């Protein structure tokens, strides 16, 4: 399992650096801008009052935009699970299946490595890569705080990032599970991506529409904590998300234990093709 973990993590190097450094640079920019924006606090708050509720619903509590926590929540944390969710969905869906689709898994699985060890080694590498990206992002916040008036404790910055981590693990493992039951990695990634975006919209719109409150309770992003997390994480929500991730991962592992390793789509299945009435056959 250690060999699989190290090998997979090595393959994640580019992803960790790419996502981590890009987000860290964004964080540096935002924290550096905090003082400038803070100087125009009153005008900004007046402007924000005119923003439609449909818009502000997605980005948190604008009334506390002037506080460091509120600023970070609105400018960064509110959409972070959506952005990093792309990483989680793509990597989660391809964690096992991308090697299967390109034929490499056929050889690896013939080595004396149990399917459990292979699965767990890769899953652990995915979790480590996600934590590493968030750690680089954390550095991007705490380092520029040295020359900014933004004053949030280094440890407290981790609280909302832990919530981001839990969300990413939920969507990553969901994508992994889908890749085990759907015929292709692409379909699994697309489905998980749609669920991620739907969750973002349902959660946001539920703030302005009571009709969506019930369905929003099923949305993982409903339990995402941004500004509130700075005052202390809701442990039940965090634990709930982590349990969901563990359940998705366990189901994916269970499925992987029992399924055939496909070679070049061998044994795969396709969604039934829809024959359109206006489609003409060749030669007609």
């Amino acid at each position, binding site marked *: 399992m250690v060999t699989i973990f190290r090998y997979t993590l090595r393959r994640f190097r580019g992803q960790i650096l790419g996502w981590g450094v890009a987000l860290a640079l964004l964080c540096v920019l935002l924290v550096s801008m905090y003082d400038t924006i803070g100087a125009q606090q009153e005008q900004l708050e007046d402007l924000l009052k005119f923003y439609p509720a449909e818009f502000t619903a997605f980005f948190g509590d604008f009334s506390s935009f002037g506080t460091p926590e509120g600023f970070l929540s609105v400018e960064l944390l509110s959409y972070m699970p959506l952005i990093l969710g792309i990483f989680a969905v793509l990597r989660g869906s391809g964690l096992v299946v991308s090697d299967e689709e390109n034929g*490499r898994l*056929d050889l690896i*699985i*013939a080595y004396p*490595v149990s399917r459990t060890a292979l699965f767990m080694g890769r899953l652990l590498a995915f979790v480590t890569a996600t934590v590493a990206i968030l750690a680089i992002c954390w550095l991007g916040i705490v380092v520029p705080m040295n020359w900014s008036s933004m004053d949030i404790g280094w440890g407290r910055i981790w609280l909302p990032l832990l919530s981001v981590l839990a969300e990413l693990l939920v969507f990553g493992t969901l994508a992994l599970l889908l890749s085990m039951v759907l015929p292709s990695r692409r379909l699994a990634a697309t489905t998980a991506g749609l669920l991620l975006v739907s969750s973002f919209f349902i959660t946001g719109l539920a703030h302005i529409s009571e009709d969506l409150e019930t369905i929003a309770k099923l949305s993982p992003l409903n339990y995402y904590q941004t500004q509130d997390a700075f005052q202390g994480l809701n442990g039940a929500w965090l634990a709930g998300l982590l349990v969901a991730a563990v359940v998705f991962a366990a189901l994916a592992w269970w499925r992987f234990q*029992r399924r*055939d390793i496909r070679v070049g789509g061998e044994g795969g299945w396709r969604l039934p093709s829809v024959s359109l009435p206006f489609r003409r056959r060749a030669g007609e």
Partner: protein
Amino acid sequence: MSDIVIDVQDLTKSYGRVRAVRDIDLKVRRGEIFGYLGPNGAGKTTTMRCLLDLIRPDGGTVRVLGLDPQADAVAVQARAGYLPGELRLDPNMTVEGALRYFNALRGNKVDWGFVRQLTERLDLDLKPIIKNLSHGNKQKVGVVQALMHRPELLLLDEPTLGLDPLMQHEVLRLITEAKAGGATVFFSSHIMPEVEAVAERVAIIRKGVVVEVAEPASLINRAVRRSKVRFKQAVDISSLANLPGVTVLSQDDGTSVLLQVEGEMDDLIKALAAFPVSDFETERPSLEEIFLAYYEDDQKEE
């Protein structure tokens, strides 16, 4: 220790509605080189992948090295070396990186000196990145990784695919050396001369069904062949025509005859001893021709 290394009974595997293999029975003995022949899509790879628990059979039983691959997959895989038919390697690794990774997957138990011997014999440079290698050189990496831990059982799906004739010959030598070292070899191939050269027994699989298991020589001996006999003078050949398995195809005024012989030649040769034979020609069918005969049947059916 059982003398049977691969024991397959009634193996059946389908992919949806497509039956890949059906009721396959195979027994491969310890220390033998067993060739598995069949056209593309006949079920060779499916059989091989069932042996390593890469895919799960729908029916039948499989025992490899005395173990059930589904229950003891890791134990079977630890003692086997496998070369897939469609070899895919991490394109961003060097040859050495890939081989060291495979070694790590085996718990770093491989004798690296032996790896160097294998790469030297196959003229394989360890430094290049996999994606820059030709198909043949990638295949060499596949051969080395299958052999490098000196496995008890070698499962090789088209081991010489994409190699030049010299390297094909070298790989066949490595296979026979592995056998000499006590390994059992189960391999598939499309290149009949090489199967004929190294395999002690062969199985021919057609449309997912094993239609023949025999020694290559026995297959050849049992095949239909044509023999032309010339006599010093006109003779009555009616006694030849009555021999079992012999059919007279044509004759020229009693001085020569073209015969079709099915099975052993022994009876014909003994019968010819009574005639004034001036010349005798017979064609020895190759394994390839025998294999093609099975294949042609398929085409006719289609």
